[in-house]
């Protein structure tokens, strides 16, 4: 069940997210797009599970988890 890309999903904690747009701007695959409040919507297909969104989010609001976790 390790870091199998296929089973990992990107989660956004809407309570933490402040819609700063950093994850969206630095997603190498444009897998994130902003809602009207600036918070990201994730595209499962485009995403390569690189973790850059998680790495740079200043609000601990976006991260990869094994599907079904959290």
């Amino acid at each position, binding site marked *: 069940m390790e870091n199998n890309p296929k089973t990992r999903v990107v989660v956004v904690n809407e309570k*933490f997210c402040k819609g*700063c747009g950093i994850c969206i701007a630095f997603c190498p695959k444009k897998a994130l797009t902003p809602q009207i409040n600036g918070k990201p919507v994730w595209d499962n297909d485009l995403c390569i599970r690189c973790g850059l969104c998680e*790495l*740079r*989010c*200043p*609000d601990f609001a976006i991260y990869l988890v094994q599907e079904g976790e959290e």
Partner: protein
Amino acid sequence: MSNGRELLRLNKMPHIWCPGCGNGIITSQVLRAIQELEWDQDKTVIVSGIGCSSRAPGYLDFSTLHTTHGRALAFATGLKYANPELKVIVLTGDGDSAAIGGNHLIHACRRNIDITTIVFNNSIYGMTSGQYSPLTPTGSLATTAPYGNIDRTFDLSQLAVAAGATYVARTTTYHTNQLRDFIKKGMQNKGFSVIEAVTHCPTYFGRRNRMGGAVEMLNWQKDHAVPIRAAERLSEEELADKFIIGEFHNKPEPEYCERYAQLIANTKGQE
């Protein structure tokens, strides 16, 4: 890998920082570093002064100490010295460490006490809404520098080296992995370490200086940070609007608490 959230006090989140503020990026790297080095949560103390950045410890699930403006290192010195088995990290701002706290920084460097200090350098006093700090570059605007800052651009890392810190490095919130790497090296250094993390304050520094939002400021960092090796090949003019990132110093020397432990060992029971 994780963003370190396992070590957060989740019930205190979301944190008070503005949208896009770099403080959270640095904090996340600190937590990841602690995780990767497997430091004991119960033996790790995180100390800060006063400032936006200094609010970080409140969100971190350790023994945490939010002190007075500029004095974090003095509190931390007492803590560490009194119980050397504690691991001590100090989180501080550019104002906190370089303005009011400059003296404690020098003396912690000089003693080489085993504390890892991470300076959140956003080039501004964030908490008090945007006055210039000693690390605000010449010419930048701030509420107390409405006509442009006349102070000279100041190099805190260089000061730390001269004062005797045994590990000194600088990088940015853009260079996130490098930042974590430097923090880890600082934590592993048995002695005093300074990691200057250049970060972005979109609310005050960014807005006043028309630098755009968080994303633009991160890109600015990418464009203006020059690795130390590369800098060596550049002329002064080429470097004029740039700043240097990398490891400036990494040379272990006898640590303060250990030297005192030796003194106790030599003296104890003498009467």
